[in-house]
């Protein structure tokens, strides 16, 4: 019996067998794709080293969760769901598309394992997938082309709008879905029309089923044309798309798997200046940080390739929200544009030029508070903090540091604190008469020892207002029966921000001095109330005893019964907890402070819309207090407004820097008398049953 329709393998047009095209299209397509990929890999080979082959179980877990299960996608509901549909559709249809390529050469080809029942199930699945993808593409195109969500817009200074490329690709994907359906539907329609004995079953309601209904109106010869034409439209579109991917933001279709596999698996730390160079060998390095494109690590370049331009990072970025000249999305996009320009597909590579003053500005790179909101959000595991810090290291090495930051850095070098206050006054807060009578504090500088070391850090040691937090912390510890001492003048700034502002060697000095002092103190545990100190001691220092934040200590003492809390002194007030970045996002500490607050009987607590891992940075701590950014408003002001919207009139935080920023913001935003900010330790200390 003659086949109902002639296959692409056997068909001829004007005497030319089409099987030639079935061979040529994939061969040419793969050749071009290989060539493009070789060019794209070139800069990665010249890049700085990056160690990303550790922690394999974690990496595989990330692949399952973040890549395969698209875990972060639904954080933006509609876009996320549309993406999941398209992503799963792609996974399912990749099998069909691959076998279609072979079918052009050998009509009876069946992918191994897809013969019997599995093949039937798969066919239904891929028809559903294709239908879903087409619908998702249409919704996505309308959304991007008509509704134009704000986060996709491109400010003028960052170049042209990207909507055209996005809609074009949605069109390409739709064309793939339609041509695949028409290829199959034309065959089934022909079967139906010739009254064939066995007609392939098509699931009603799917794209291919609708296509078949439509094609039943066509003559047999027209169906033959549709069959062949749709095959080659699919074939050409498929290979065109493959070669188009590495040319723009859709490169993520290829790179996302690797980018998620190699994404960071640790939190709260900064990459070493150069992988493979230990701290004691840093002096031997010729240059520090990222000054030119090739100074980025290969993973950071892969990040640039992978950015899908979804704008979620910048939508969450507090610096972007207050109009600072920083938008993380465009850190990636500008670097990718630079890379594509300097490593073109055709023509020779262009000599690299300095990034600062070129694609990036100094203020742009200093604008980041390292809050981590961008990285927390990125569905593709792109990193920003390490890149920002590497760029800052490069600027510090070249002397490009704003005057506003030079003073505190110099003071840190000379006095171990950014204000340049005398070392001997570091413990002065303990000598306040009234306080000292109630709560004597042991001093390691005087040779006293204790089981626990309370690491106070600079701001809580020297700032008049923040000394209240040190006193409250000390009182809590002593009321809970915890034996503790402070280092006093032996303590230096923890250096969390010194490292993050790119002054690595100064950080190393501070770290070494603190490490020696802490180890010599003989303490078995470190407790701090400053999340920045907590972060750096826990995640970046080495060889120290266990480090705990005061919120963890309090939560535990409440459970153990060593701390008992009185009824809330202001039960009419509504409290909200502001997650400090270095406690929450960088260290996953969300529950302990909330549990402790909820343990105060009668306290009403609400969460702001942006809370936990979506918490909004108050304006930044450490050296960020000294930086004078260009901005339209303050981050703290926006944060206080968020608390107001949540109906709160007391913002509780657990970080001295948050408190500085929030207290200032309350005044600036005109909420004095309506909203107050208070630290966790102050609130707990007031409520402890003595």
């Amino acid at each position: 019996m003659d086949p109902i329709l002639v296959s692409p393998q056997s068909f001829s047009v004007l005497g030319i067998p089409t099987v030639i095209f079935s061979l040529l299209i994939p061969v040419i397509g793969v050749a071009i794709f290989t060539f493009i990929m070789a060019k794209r890999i070139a800069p990665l080979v010249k890049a700085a080293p990056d160690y990303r082959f550790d922690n394999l179980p974690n990496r595989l877990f990330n692949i399952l969760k973040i890549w395969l299960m698209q875990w972060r996608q639904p954080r933006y509901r509609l876009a996320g769901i549309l993406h999941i549909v398209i992503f799963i559709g792609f996974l399912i249809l990749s099998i069909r598309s691959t076998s279609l390529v072979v079918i052009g050469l050998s009509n009876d080809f069946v992918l191994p394992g897809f013969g019997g029942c599995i093949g039937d199930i798969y066919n239904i699945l891929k028809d559903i997938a294709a239908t879903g993808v087409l619908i998702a593409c249409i919704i996505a195109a309308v959304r991007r082309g008509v509704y134009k969500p704000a986060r996709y817009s491109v400010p003028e200074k960052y170049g042209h709008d990207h909507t055209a490329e996005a809609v074009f690709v949605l069109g390409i994907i739709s064309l793939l879905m339609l041509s695949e359906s028409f290829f199959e539907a034309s065959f089934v329609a022909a079967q139906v029309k010739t009254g064939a004995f066995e007609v392939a079953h098509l699931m009603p309601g799917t794209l291919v089923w609708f296509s078949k209904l439509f094609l039943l109106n066509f003559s047999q010869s027209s169906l033959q044309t549709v069959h062949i034409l749709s095959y080659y439209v699919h074939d050409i579109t498929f290979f065109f798309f493959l070669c188009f991917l590495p040319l723009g933001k859709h490169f993520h279709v290829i790179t996302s798997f690797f980018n998620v596999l190699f994404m960071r698996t640790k939190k709260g730390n900064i990459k070493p200046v150069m992988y493979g160079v230990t701290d004691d060998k840093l002096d031997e390095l010729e240059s520090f940080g990222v000054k030119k494109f090739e100074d980025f690590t290969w993973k950071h370049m892969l990040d640039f390739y992978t950015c899908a331009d979804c704008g979620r990072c910048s939508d969450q970025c507090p610096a972007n929200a207050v109009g600072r000249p920083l938008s993380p999305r465009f850190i990636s996009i500008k670097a990718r544009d630079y890379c594509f320009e300097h490593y073109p597909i055709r023509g020779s590579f262009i000599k690299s030029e300095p990034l600062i003053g070129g694609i990036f500005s100094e203020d742009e790179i200093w604008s980041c508070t390292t809050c981590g909101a961008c990285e927390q959000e990125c569905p593709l595991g792109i990193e920003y903090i390490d890149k920002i810090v590497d760029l800052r290291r490069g600027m510090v090495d070249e002397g490009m540091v704003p005057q506003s930051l030079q003073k505190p850095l110099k003071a840190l070098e000379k006095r171990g604190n950014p204000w340049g206050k005398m070392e001997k006054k570091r413990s002065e807060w303990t000598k306040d008469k009234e306080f000292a009578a109630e709560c004597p504090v042991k001093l390691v500088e005087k040779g006293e020892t204790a089981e626990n070391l309370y690491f106070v850090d600079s701001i809580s040691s020297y700032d008049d207002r923040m000394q209240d937090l040190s006193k409250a912390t000390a009182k809590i510890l002593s009321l809970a029966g915890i034996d503790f001492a402070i280092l006093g003048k032996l303590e230096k700034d923890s250096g969390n921000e010194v490292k993050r502002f790119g002054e690595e060697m100064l950080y190393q000095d501070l770290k070494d001095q603190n490490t020696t002092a802490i180890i010599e103190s003989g303490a078995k545990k470190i407790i701090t109330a400053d999340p920045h100190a907590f972060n750096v001691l826990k995640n970046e220092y080495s060889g120290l005893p266990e480090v705990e934040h005061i919120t963890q200590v309090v939560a535990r003492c409440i459970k153990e019964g060593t701390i008992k809390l009185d009824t809330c002194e202001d039960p009419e007030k509504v409290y909200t907890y502001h997650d400090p970045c270095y406690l929450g996002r960088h260290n996953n500490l969300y529950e302990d402070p909330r549990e402790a607050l909820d343990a105060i009987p009668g306290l009403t607590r609400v969460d702001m819309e942006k809370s936990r891992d979506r918490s909004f940075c108050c304006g930044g701590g450490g050296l960020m207090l000294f930086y004078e950014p260009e901005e339209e408003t303050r981050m703290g002001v926006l944060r206080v407004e968020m608390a107001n919207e949540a109906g709160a009139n007391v913002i509780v935080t657990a970080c001295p820097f948050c408190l500085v920023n929030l207290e200032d913001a309350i005044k600036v935003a005109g909420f004095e008398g309506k909203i107050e900010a208070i630290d966790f330790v102050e609130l707990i200390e007031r409520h402890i049953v003595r």
Partner: protein
Amino acid sequence: MEILVCVKRVPDTSENEIEVNSSGSDIERDDLVYSVNEWDNYAVEEAIQIVENAGSGSVTVVTIGDDESEEILRREMAMGANNGLLLSDDAFENSDGKGIATILKAAVDKGNYDLILTGAQAEGGAAQVGGMLAAMLDLPYASLVNKIDIGDSKLKVGREIEGGNQEMNDISMPCVLSIQTGINEPRYVGIRGIRKVASVDIPVMSASDLGIDASAVGEAGAKVKRVDYFVPDLGDGAEMLEGSTEEIIGKLIELLKANGGL
């Protein structure tokens, strides 16, 4: 262009609590941290920028002091100065302004400089060394310079004058300029930069190396002697107004009216 910049090691006012000692002879120097005089740092940055823009030449930083002063020379060399020169001799101790200028003049005579920069003043606030040095060298001088444009054999220098106004002058080289802060944005010097120049050799010159008569400088040659330091007694003219903003404004207006201010 060969540039000499005169620098001084001073207690850093932003990182110290300055107190007069009990005898009134000096400030308390225990627990002080020192750095390069702020004005001098601007002068060094300016010199480095001039040489960078010219593409040729060198910057030498010179200071008078003991071994500890070497630290600030290294810091300025980490910034980009090519050479350091330490003028050190027991005979230099307790020089007055003229003594300092005499020592610096001897150092200038040993070299061949097109331009000599000093800071406008140091922590003592006398602002005298630049002018004296120029006079001794018989070179043209401009003080409080906050702008320098390089011409062929001439400089165009801007000076800050009363009321924030700007004065522009042509000045021929070689010359001496005392530099005002704000002329540029001095670059940052990190610990890494200082370590890089930690082992660079810095020549030391004594009074005899410089051919200076020891009796003309130092305590022996000083014609100006510091007699006393003291903190002025607090006056009792201050009155703190208290109350809400409106109340304070009300009281202030009353006070101004009562005292003929309005």
